[in-house]
């Protein structure tokens, strides 16, 4: 029997095990919403802006391990999700995004709310297509879920014209789909792997560089086992943070632009760099000519195109991180790395990762208090200085997960992603660490947190500035704070050199902001108040709690490597 497109869509959701979708209605998706209205077992999360919606779906996907499903209307609904598509594309987050489209006959007529969303997003999606024949709908939806979650996961966009949604057609939702141009790698080249292991075994100063691929591949156990058996120390990228638990004796810290001094020196001095699940982004390598200059490089990645793109590697291996590490564990033998690890620990003592403790509350104190308050938690960050402090000072790994926008670095990610994570894991603590800039980019989502009864804890580090850019202005632009002061008003002098007595007050009042939504608001100005505030937030299970931490305006993220400089040239003070 034939069924309508909208009925088939719901059938597809059910077959794929989708019980939560993130949807914002509009003219070209009302039919689908009408169908969803009748379903008791599919929850529709209504955000307050489509950008918030897709970040929520990302947080949900990251926390649950499932595909995040978005449903938005044509035109502005569709264009509003583009930032999230790019974000998910960079960070390999599986999403299926459905956009409504004007009826087939109107496409190309500049109809009301018509945009070529598939064309606009082709460079930031793993796959995208407009459904042009009702009988293709089932196959295309199946393809979407299959492509989103296999291989290197990513966002898929399916554009469904309104008439396809209501047209009767094939009721079949295929149980599998064959795509001739899409064959994700599912095996490991044993010869290459052996070559890699031989190289690693011959090393005097071996180092493992673990990226986000460890999380995506679920290879934590295998990585830990491999590191323990070989005794090779591990550094991580920002996305790889937590690949090995923070307190593990072989874990050294993050490398990269704001990495630990000892880790960046270790990368520059190692003789074999075993990198896995990282694409050697410029934030990790700095000046490419000076990156790991003494090292032979082994690179394992599931994405062929990630290999030998930025860094020319000696042993390339296209494979899933878990599969490859499992195999490597079979051969792994203890190596004599004791001296090498001691050496790295010495470097760490020379320049430890530490902020001053002589005056006032520092971000490090806040992160340490969060470490102590939570035995298990999902920690979600926004983008900026607070994000770097979080990746520097938080203990991630084991039962503490980190969700952050790494590749695209989208401000406004934090709050909605935290809400999405809380929806996925209602019984886990979800802590959103954010800044006053990023928070304001999607703070309308506070309403979503309230309506979804998602009591997240928001730690907002307020320094009155767009701090990451201000830091660059402070260090490299002669303290010319162009457009980074959030207190700045029309009447301020054009060439302000920083805070002074004449500065206007800061708006908004974030505590009152939280309260006006029926959430809790706490302001913390001193170190002694941090633990109490966090404890109180934990007890507030009825509504979100926003804790505003008043930190110094001129706090820096250190160490720092200036963009394009070698990683060994760190600014330390």
């Amino acid at each position, binding site marked *: 029997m034939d069924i309508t497109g909208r009925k088939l869509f719901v059938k597809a959701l059910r077959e794929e095990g989708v019980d939560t979708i993130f949807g914002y209605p509009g003219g070209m998706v009302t039919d689908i919403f009408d169908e969803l209205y009748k379903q008791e077992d599919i929850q529709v999360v209504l955000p307050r802006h489509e950008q918030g919606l897709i970040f929520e779906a990302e947080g949900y996907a990251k926390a649950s391990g499932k595909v995040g499903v978005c449903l938005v209307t044509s035109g502005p609904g569709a264009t509003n999700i583009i930032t999230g598509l790019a974000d998910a594309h960079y960070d390999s987050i599986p999403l299926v995004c459905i956009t409504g489209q004007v009826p087939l006959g109107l496409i190309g007529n500049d109809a009301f709310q018509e945009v070529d969303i598939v*064309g606009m997003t*082709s460079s930031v999606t793993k796959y995208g297509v*407009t459904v*042009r024949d009702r009988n293709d709908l089932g196959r295309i939806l199946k393809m979407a879920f299959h492509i989103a979650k296999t291989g290197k996961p990513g966002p898929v966009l399916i554009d469904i014209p309104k008439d396809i949604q209501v047209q009767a057609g094939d009721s079949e939702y295929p149980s599998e789909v064959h795509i001739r*141009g899409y064959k994700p790698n599912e095996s490991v080249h044993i010869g290459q792997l052996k070559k890699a292991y031989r190289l690693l075994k011959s090393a005097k100063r071996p180092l493992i560089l673990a990226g986000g691929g460890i999380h995506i591949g679920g290879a934590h156990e295998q990585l830990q086992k491999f590191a323990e058996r070989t005794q090779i120390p591990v550094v991580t990228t920002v996305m790889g943070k937590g690949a090995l638990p923070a307190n593990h004796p072989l874990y050294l810290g993050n490398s990269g632009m704001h990495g630990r001094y000892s880790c960046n020196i270790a990368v520059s001095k190692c003789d074999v760099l075993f990198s896995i699940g990282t694409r050697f982004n410029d934030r990790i390598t700095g000046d490419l000519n000076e990156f790991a200059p003494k090292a032979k490089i082994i690179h394992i990645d599931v994405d*062929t*195109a990630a*290999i*030998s793109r930025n860094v020319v590697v000696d042993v390339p291996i296209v494979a899933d991180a878990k599969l490859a590490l499992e195999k490597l564990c079979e051969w792994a033998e203890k190596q004599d790395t004791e001296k090498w690890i001691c050496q790295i620990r010495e470097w760490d003592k020379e320049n430890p990762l530490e902020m001053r403790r002589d005056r006032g509350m520092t971000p490090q104190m806040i992160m340490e208090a969060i470490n102590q308050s939570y035995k298990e938690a999902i920690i979600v960050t926004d983008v900026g200085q607070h994000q770097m402090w979080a990746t520097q000072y938080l203990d991630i790994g084991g039962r503490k997960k980190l969700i952050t926008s790494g590749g695209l670095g989208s401000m406004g990610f934090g709050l909605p992603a935290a809400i999405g994570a809380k929806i996925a894991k209602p019984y886990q603590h979800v802590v959103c660490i954010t800044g006053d800039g990023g928070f304001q980019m999607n703070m309308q989502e506070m309403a979503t947190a309230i309506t979804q009864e998602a009591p997240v804890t928001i730690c907002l580090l307020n320094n009155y500035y767009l701090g990451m850019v201000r830091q660059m202005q402070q260090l490299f632009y002669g303290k010319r704070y162009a457009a980074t002061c959030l207190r700045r008003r029309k009447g301020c002098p054009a060439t302000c050199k920083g805070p002074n007595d004449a500065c206007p007050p800061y708006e908004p009042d974030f505590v009152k902001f939280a309260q006006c939504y029926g959430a809790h608001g706490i302001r913390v100005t001193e170190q002694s108040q941090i633990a109490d505030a966090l404890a109180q937030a934990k007890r507030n299970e009825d509504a979100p709690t926003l804790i505003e931490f008043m930190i110094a305006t001129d706090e820096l993220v250190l160490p720092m490597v200036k963009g394009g400089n070698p990683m060994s040239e760190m600014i330390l003070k």
Partner: protein
Amino acid sequence: MKNRWIALYVENQVGVLAKVSGLFSGKSYNLQSLTVGTTEDATVSRMTICVMSDDITFEQIKKQLNRMVEVIKVIDLTNVPIHMKEILFAKVKDLKSSQIDEVFRIAEVFSVEVTDIGKDSVMLECKLTERRNNELIELLKAKFRNIEIVRGGAVAIEAISTSCR
């Protein structure tokens, strides 16, 4: 940096050409020519693509093409015996009657067809290699004041015998 050739099998669907060409512009790859048409299988199109690049970029281009869902197969034609031809029409205009003979002589030497003629214009239809077409254009430009050229970009196919180009 040199010219390299790729044959690309893609799904014959709306938007695939835009996606492939978008990859080249989006990633700043230097696309020299791109032709596309359906194959013996109506659901499959075949593109012949010429890019100017260094070795590393070329490797990356092939990988990027390969990971597109709509791309079925990428064949590197750079070091493979192939047959390659490009269609080109050349209108040579404002000719004095004495010059018309000269156009015919050139056509003969280049083994191209004269497909149309008027009182002061001659049209040539050329199916030559891209390089040979370039040479022809240079010659026509040097000899005649008013020419009009349209060319289709090269199409290429792997040779049956092993020594063609």
